[in-house]
């Protein structure tokens, strides 16, 4: 055993141990990309820097053994800055988006590329599940959404945007999905209840997302039927049965509807007393509401733009009551985001809204990148529904249209360590910007793996793993310095390089450089 100090505390580890695993075993969280258990240390990413207090030097903890008398500092301002700078350097050379532009543009933040991948494989049920994670009224929005996602879709730089809205509609109309309520409600939320005034898209969405976390929601509306402004839409555009179906779906989750109950100032004050929180989603501001004690301005209620909190504690305001708006999807987005705020409020946490996480972005597609993106797509033009817009897309059309998606998103969006650390260290991807970026390349073959070299951080894990497992070709470092690349020797195919251990290598890759193309093994190979 060796005794040494960590953050001035005496500790003991087995002799011969390396610092990083020793610190991990002691419960310290040290960021690292190039370290991989079972492989020899490589000392590349330099994120695992810690400080030896005896000399003040920053040392890579993955590669040095614990020595007696060491006095290790795991975190201080300098270490934080060093790691942050390291991350920013890596990010300055990391060409790829975490979330696709369409997802970023969607007010409800829906995972569009994932929906497309599922639909392309004929998985409407799973696709609907993905949609309904963020969108409470998919069938409705599939008919009336103004689709900001399509306006930013990168495919439009090649030909026309993917028909995202109609694909979503197909998922809503054809998919079967039963949301499951939590078996056990979080203790802090047990017995809590929320009153929502207004049954339009904002109110419905807020109720849906909050109810699914086990908080009892009750919607009040003076109208006899729910739907608010949605009820006024032409039947030819939005058939009543679609609206009814989705409202009853929300009702089935346990949301209570108290229709025909107009809320005036007194009623509002009573709701405030008897409910743990109140959401105002009444649509465009009407004069009497100005008397309720809420701060208002010319166009609506004054509320915090990111948390939807009004001046009254526990009272939130969403949708057109904040400011007249015509986009239903925006209201739906408000409802979803407000739900995060409500839950935080109910749990007595700091109200911050939907947790935002670091997002890498690279901007427009360069002309030479078009072919790269088309590798994972087809070159067909946008499918216009053969039976007309009112009929929407049919299965064959869906399969073809969904396959037009060029998958700008990262397949490891939730597990990419670079993203997680970039977020934790508040790294700024643009800090060392200014130079021309490298062009995106995609290596795709018949296999399940996808390789995007410009996302690689050159940690060498794939090289070392394939070497250890004696792959005939494996992955190799090619070139040196800034232009170093990792690839298969002699330009062999990726599947030749990753013959036996593709899955482990893909899993071991700390970023989205090597990934599986689909979250599930694809049903049919393209």
């Amino acid at each position: 055993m060796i005794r040494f100090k960590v953050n001035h505390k005496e500790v003991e580890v087995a002799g011969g141990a390396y610092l990083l695993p020793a610190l991990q075993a002691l419960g310290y969280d040290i960021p690292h990309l190039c370290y991989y258990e079972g492989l020899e240390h490589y000392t590349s990413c330099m994120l695992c820097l810690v400080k030896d207090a005896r000399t003040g030097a920053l040392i890579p903890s993955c590669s040095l053994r614990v020595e007696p008398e060491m006095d290790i500092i795991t975190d201080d301002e300098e270490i934080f800055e060093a790691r942050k700078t390291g991350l920013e350097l890596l990010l300055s050379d990391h060409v790829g988006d975490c979330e696709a532009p369409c997802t970023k543009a969607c007010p409800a933040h829906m995972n569009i590329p994932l929906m497309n991948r599922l639909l392309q494989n004929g998985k409407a049920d799973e696709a609907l599940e993905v949609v309904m994670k963020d969108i409470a009224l998919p069938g409705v929005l599939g008919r009336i959404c103004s689709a900001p996602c399509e306006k930013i879709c990168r495919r439009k730089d090649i030909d026309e945007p993917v028909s995202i809205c109609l694909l979503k509609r197909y998922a809503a109309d054809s998919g079967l999905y039963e949301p499951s309520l939590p078996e056990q409600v979080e203790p802090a939320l047990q017995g809590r209840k929320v009153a929502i005034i207004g049954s339009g898209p904002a109110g419905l969405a807020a109720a849906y997302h909050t109810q699914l976390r086990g908080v009892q929601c009750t919607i009040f509306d003076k109208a006899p039927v729910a739907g608010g402004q949605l009820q006024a839409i032409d039947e030819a555009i939005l058939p009543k049965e679609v609206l009814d179906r989705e409202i009853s779906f929300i009702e089935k989750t346990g949301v209570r509807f108290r229709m025909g109950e107009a809320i005036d100032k007194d009623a509002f004050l009573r709701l405030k007393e008897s409910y743990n929180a109140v959401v105002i989603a009444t649509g465009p501001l009407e004069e009497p509401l100005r008397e309720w004690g809420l701060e208002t301005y010319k166009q609506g209620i004054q509320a915090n733009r990111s948390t939807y909190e009004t001046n009254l504690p526990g009272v939130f305001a969403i949708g057109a009551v904040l400011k007249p708006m015509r986009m239903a999807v925006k209201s739906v987005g408000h409802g979803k985001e407000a739900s995060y705020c409500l839950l935080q409020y109910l749990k007595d946490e700091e109200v911050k809204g939907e947790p935002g996480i670091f997002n890498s972005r690279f901007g427009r597609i360069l002309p030479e990148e078009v072919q790269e993106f088309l590798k994972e797509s087809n070159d067909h033009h946008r499918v216009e529904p053969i039976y007309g817009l009112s009929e929407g897309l049919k299965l064959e059309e869906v399969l073809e249209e969904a396959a037009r998606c060029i998958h700008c998103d990262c397949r490891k969006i939730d597990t990419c360590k670079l993203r997680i650390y970039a977020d934790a260290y508040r790294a700024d991807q643009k800090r060392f910007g200014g130079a021309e970026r490298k062009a995106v390349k995609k290596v795709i073959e018949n296999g399940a793996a996808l390789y995007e070299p410009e996302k690689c951080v050159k940690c060498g894990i794939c090289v070392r793993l394939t070497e250890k497992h004696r792959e005939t070709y494996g992955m190799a470092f090619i070139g040196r310095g800034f232009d170093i690349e990792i690839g298969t020797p002699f330009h062999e195919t990726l599947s030749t390089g990753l013959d036996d251990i593709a899955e482990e290598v893909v899993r071991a890759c700390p970023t989205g450089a090597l990934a599986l193309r689909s979250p599930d093994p694809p049903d049919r190979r393209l």
Partner: protein
Amino acid sequence: MKIDYRDIDEIIAREGTDKRFVIPILQAIQNKYNYLPEEALRRVCEHTQITPQQIVSVASFYSQFRLFEAGKHIIKVCDGTACHVKGAGLVYDALSRKLDLKEGEHTDQTGTYTLEKVHCLGCCALAPVVQADSITYPHLNSSKAEKLLADFAKLSRQQKERPARKPVERPEGEVRITLDSCCAASGTAAVKQAVEKVLAEERLNVRFKPVSCVGMCSQVPVVEVAPEGQPPHFYAQVQAEDVRHILERHFRPRRLIDRFRINVLKAASYFQDEADGNGMRINALDAKDKQVASFLGQQVPIATEFRGSIDPADIEEYLSRGGFEALRKCLETMAPTAVVEEVKNSGMRGRGGAGFPTGKKWEMLAAQAKSPKYIICNGDEGDPGAFMDRMLLESYPYRVIEGMLIGAYATGASEGYFYIRAEYPEAAASIRQALNVCRERGLVGERILGTDFSCRLQVYEGAGAFVCGEETALINSIEGGRGFPRIRPPYPVEEGLWGQPTLVNNTETFAQIPFILKNGAGRFSAIGTEGSKGAKVFSLTGKVNRGGLIEVPMGATIRQIVEEIGSGIPNGRQFKAVQIGGPSGGCLPASLADIPIDFESLREAGAMMGSGGLVVLDDSDCMVDIARYFLSFTQNESCGKCTFCRIGTRRMTEILDRICSGKGKVKDLEEMEMLAGWTSKGSLCGLGKTAPNPVTTTLKHFRHEYEAHINGKCPAGKCKELITYSINKKCIGCTICAQKCPVEAIAFRPHEKHEIDMELCIRCNNCLEVCPYEAVDVQ
């Protein structure tokens, strides 16, 4: 390219099938095909233990290897520091224009020439230099470079070997010529041929003798004529056609002398206009002459003892001057611990750059229980602007071998390697030849000098990677891998080559060792300063009248070196700064020229000893450009392993590019300083840790120049995007510039004052070079 597998199989049979032979195998393949055909590499993988992964990663790591078919002839433009400050960039551009290469192209349309930039050919005193196959062209400029191709085409048709002469008995005297690479580059080979021709034709009973480098690189070719029983006569900058006159002067009737004008060398004027000639065809150098005396007299030759007087290849000459006595003394009268003790007492510190005490390193290796132990001579001298190691290996091979053997004896190492840089084929040949002689004489190999001490030594040639000068990268390279450094500890003395205890010392370190053991630690430690003992070899280059290879006692000041040994700055220019220590070192301004050169003083000033490159800069040198030059060098040579060096140096280079092109912002300076700090703290090895030094020292001492660039001015008139050319009143309308302008930016108007169209001008500097009337201004 058609591959004959029999050739590949033959190479494999010759080099071996183990993984570690990958670099020699690749070198042999490239020798055969001028590049590395994929088919050949696949064949190697099929018939050896080398894997595709290994061969591809090694072949693509080292800059010596070409993965694409190259032209029939390779034209290498040296981009070492000395060449850079003397306009290598303009020379490259001129050749590129001549070959009609487009951006990113390296081989011309006909497939005849491939143009490459290389980091330092080690002929810094002849800068700027271009090497076409094996022919080296010194002192080029943009306009001369244009003629180079035609000349090369002619020469390569003519080249023929002359038969060697029989050895001379009872000679009337000796003719000595230094024949190391930089002398050869300046035309010594032609002079040698002329000497042999004259000796043969005139049947002179005179011995011809190649000798070790004398260090007066700015004066080469130097011919030394030593009639029997008389003091030697030196002739500087001799041309082949002068040889007959010189020889006849000493070995023929005296009356012939009147035929020549003899001039005592005026190095200052000669260095600049040697090519144009001013009537001084023959330059006799007198060893007692003030010029020569001040060059040689200040120096203390230890590693370079007997410079210029012994034949490097002749072991008899080395033996007759006490060579291998130190080794014999160690083996016969001293215990290994006593040898270590002696080296410790001498205060010797490693000459590779960091200055680690040599004796202490030896002691650490000696204490290791594991065996076998290895010893490595680091001859991977990659600093642009430095050629000490090359000269020592070429001129003093036996001394380096002796030093290494003493090291092996003291530490218990039984096997060793000379790791010699790819760009130094002559150095490798010199050591190989010397090792063969030593083996025959029982000085290397089993039971050395009849004792129980055995040590096998061999040469391992690098393949072009500056980072391999870092000891752990060097070891990886010998093991057949990419030159990736690895973290220390463990240090090589604990776990080095093949995981065994290994001593890695610099070439110059080994070259100093025999002196210490022969003369005692006291003699050595009497030279130098408190913390830095002995003498240090520097290659003195750049804007200095007498550049060359010098060995001075530690503690000599920069001013002594530049002004006394180097005889000051040519062309009446101002001494501005010295760049010391290469890419890891820094720029010290003339105002600091009185600091003594030793490890501590240099470090305090923000520079470092490095391996001993000393480039003198004058007021026409742009310090921002110098910083950019070094940083882009290290950035190119970064192995790419760790984040801070791989990306940090790149981002800093981009900032410097912006500043040099006038697009810099004030906040860029702050950003760069910050990035420099992190790169130096966070990099894995010495290359990255010291890479920011040229930037931080220039920012410290020459910040105003950075600020001037940000304000759109390059005060030295170097940065292309920030300068304009114009023609002043001295113009007489001779049209030479108009004829030489490659882009027709100067209209052909005889007898009228010319004008330069700045829209068309590509800033190639041709007009300024050719104008006989100093009528071209650059601002």
